[in-house]
């Protein structure tokens, strides 16, 4: 494994956590830095492959142009829509105010 070399810094972990609106304890930062580094290190093994003659692909499956016809189908019942909402008002999802400044 990649004990000696970390593929992600603590600062990067804190940055990603901030983007995801997560508050991490120092302990968690240490733990997730190691875990994320392991994942990135594993993915990094791909760079050891000889890929000079392989053209970049956007998708692993050789498919293109998968479409749906523009035909209306029934939506789901409103009571089911807000069934899992922690809070709702007038059939709408109620969330804390989203403008924070």
């Amino acid at each position, binding site marked *: 494994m990649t004990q000696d070399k970390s593929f992600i810094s603590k600062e990067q972990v804190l*940055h990603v956590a*901030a*983007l*995801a*609106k997560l508050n991490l304890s120092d302990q968690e930062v240490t733990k997730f830095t190691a875990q994320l580094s392991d994942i990135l290190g594993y993915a990094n093994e791909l760079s050891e492959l000889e890929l000079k003659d392989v053209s970049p692909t*956007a*998708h692993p*499956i050789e*498919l*293109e*142009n*998968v*479409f*749906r*016809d*523009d*035909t*209306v*189908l029934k*939506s*789901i019942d*409103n009571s089911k*829509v*807000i069934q899992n909402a922690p809070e709702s*008002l*007038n*059939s*709408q*999802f*109620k*969330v*804390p*105010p*989203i*403008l924070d*400044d």
Partner: protein
Amino acid sequence: MEMPANTVKNDIEDFLKDTGFEATIGLEVHCELKTATKLWCSCKNSFGNEPNTLVCPVCLGLPGSLPVLNKRAVEYAIRIGLALNCTVQNSIFHRKNYFYPDMPKDFQISQYDIPINADGYVTLPDGGSVGIVRAHIEEDTGKSTHFSASGRIHESSATLIDYNRAGIPLVEIVSAPDITSSEMAKAYVTELRNIIVATGATDGKMEEGSMRVDANVSVKRIQDSELGTRCEIKNLNSLRSLGKAINYEIKRQVDNILSGQKVVQQTRHFNEDLNQTVTLRTKEEAEDYRYFPEPDLVPLNPGAAWIEQIKAEMPPLLIERRRMVQDLMRETQEIDQLQSAIAILVDLNLDSVFKQTVGIGANPTIALKRLTNEAANAVEAARNLNPEQFAKLIQLETDNKISTTQSKTILSKMLENPDKTLDILISELNIVSFGEAETTALVEQLIKDKPDEFERFKQGDDKVTQFFIGQIMRLSKGQANGKLVTEILMKKRNQF
């Protein structure tokens, strides 16, 4: 009232001249596509429904749901690309990651480095041009309503989310930073709107939010080569707000620099009540969208044959429709003064009835004037005018058989009564034709009755013309044609 707007415009121009600054503006225009269903799911694409009634696991972002691309949305996006002179190319979709409750998946499916349409331009009515960097497909967000006792956005105590709009197909049209003033920005948005509405892909209703504009504004000293730091003003939903927000922002940034401060890159919101832009968020963190290719969607490669087919099935482009009207007006002397009327005719979708009416032989200038003035007040009815009856009416006016006033009266009745023929309308309105013969008879009678006035007229007192016209209008109960009376009087003066 035009005055205040002009004053503001000149104020800003003067202000920039005095301070030696210039503005650089780029616009991002989001327009909803008029598809029957959403972009990734089969929920109905519709405005003004009860909250959260047009949603399903896909557009609610529930785990395990998968997007499937709406073919019609792609066709509409390609129409827009073609109308904006873009290259339509193979493209892929990306995830744009950010946390905001109106985006239920916590990412928006959009296009990033390879958009479907790239490198186009829009030609403005004054001959100027604005480059189009890209016009890509993405999904709309849900609609959030902020509420608070005061009703002010910064004091909202909770936010309610309706996801009916989430997943509605959008095309985002990104202009090059070629725009230099609020007036040019408004001209660009107006022309862009007309162009894309003519494709049938979108209805361009700013007031309903189906077309929304973000403005990137920066200022710099004229002699500097590097652009200044820009601020983005989000969600401008009327031309008026667009103009005001840009002018406010230009002034704010120049004032900032002149007072020794720096312009901070940030996203701003235009407050309609305060008439000013206010900070929404600074850019530093929000910029980091961590785009990556959407693994649940395959590449979109429309291919030349399909693009050709879309081009062939598309309604004629705005510019072609204007050219068609211009061609029909070739012979007209005043065509240069009529260019804006031609644009209005096409924007009102009255070019088809114009074409048919002129095709039958009606005078194009009169047809254009009647359609863009009187008929424009009843535009639905005007589109359904019977070209034959309308052409006959214009012919009567052209031949001086009826006056312009009479013609307008008949036209307004014709618009209200599409089933009645011209002859019936004329008899119902008691329109009496005062053609050359009838008018000449009246003029001759008047000359006999008022020899003194006619003598003064003969001596060259042209003011008497008004007296004669007034008398004849009285005799004819307002139905005579003043222009024709003048012509006949002149003829009589030369005869005697």
